[in-house]
């Protein structure tokens, strides 16, 4: 009987775990965006709250992605789904750079291919260089632990850009004997 009880308990536990997984996946896929009045940081009694745009209204039409805002911001920009101003008054042009940096100190993980071409349509050179990364490739020792602490890539990829849970969006270069830089 004792064996049977533990069998039932284990089965119930498995069911609970699967149920929770399915629920999380389902809800996350269906509606990744909460409403402002329920997000835990806005004051529900603020009379101005109805004037603010709800995340789902702005983000649901944009290209989807896992994690973060549920939006693939790179695709959103490249496809023209959004066209954020490059300067405050909308005039002028931006300085972009097409240069990939291959980061190979990744242990068992695939190498990291950092693309300036993806980052510079958003960011100015001075946003990263020199205060976060040295301009010379390879001069800034980056570790995953420091990124998780919020340094280096983690300055943005912890809380604003796609989060560090999306491993394969950075670790996307299979390790080979030869590599480019």
């Amino acid at each position, binding site marked *: 009987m004792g064996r049977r009880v533990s069998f039932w308990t284990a089965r119930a536990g498995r069911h609970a775990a699967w149920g929770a997984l399915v629920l999380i996946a389902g809800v996350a896929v269906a509606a990744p965006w909460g409403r402002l009045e329920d*997000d835990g940081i806005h004051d529900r009694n603020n009379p101005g*709250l109805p004037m603010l745009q709800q995340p789902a209204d702005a983000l649901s039409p944009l290209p989807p992605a896992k994690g973060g805002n549920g939006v693939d911001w790179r695709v959103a920009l490249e496809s023209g789904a959004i066209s*954020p101003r490059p300067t405050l008054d909308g005039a002028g042009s931006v300085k972009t750079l097409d240069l990939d940096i291959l980061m190979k100190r990744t242990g068992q993980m695939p190498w990291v291919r950092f693309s300036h071409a993806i980052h510079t349509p958003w960011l100015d050179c001075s946003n990263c260089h020199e205060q976060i990364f040295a301009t010379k490739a390879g001069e800034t020792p980056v570790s995953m632990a420091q990124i998780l602490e919020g340094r280096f890539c983690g300055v943005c990829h912890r809380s604003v850009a796609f989060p560090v849970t999306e491993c394969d969006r950075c670790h996307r270069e299979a390790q080979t004997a030869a590599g480019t830089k």
Partner: protein
Amino acid sequence: MAPRKPFAALPPGGKNDDPSSPPRACAGRQGGGHARIAAARRAIGVGVLACVLGLSSAGAEHGDVVRSRRATAGNMAPVVFPHWFHRIRFQCRVCHAELGFQMRVGATELGMGDLVAGRYCGRCHNGEIAWGLASCGLCHSGREGLPDGIASWAFGPYFIEAVPELPFRETGHREGGAAASSEPPAGTPSPTAVAAPASTPPSGPEAAARPENPVPVTPTPKP
């Protein structure tokens, strides 16, 4: 009592080591199995409920910044800054290079005096590009008692960055902002900027930073 099977011998609390203590009612007794199944079903129910409740209030959006200290000191509700809203309309470089906001959350010291003088948020929130500074509650929309921080999807609905403790190289920051206003670098508390009263008409360098006197916004080339 039959020798306990190893699996059944472990009560959930792990406190049944004393052999003199009576066996638990549900441990291998007639009906105990049903009780345990019922308990497991209740657990499932609670778990499902928790999932639904937890996910229906999904938490702050990834990248939502809360600025609380200064607002609270001034008896105002904390400011909530939604990154998602602003990045649809402006590239990162506009605020983080042109307007002088540092990349690290909380590292840019600013007060309403700065905004009134047309700096930082005040560059847009002037009633022309975005709502003006008189619409207090649209920015000061956070609930009371929030700490400073930024929400991260990966670290839970409201993850607090340990801003001041982390080492952060201070060289060369705020070049774009420094060009727009002849002010000490951000991070250095500037009593004049903070104390600038709302009634004082902007003049000198502050006027130069007003939107009606736009400053050239060519990207600063790095050496």
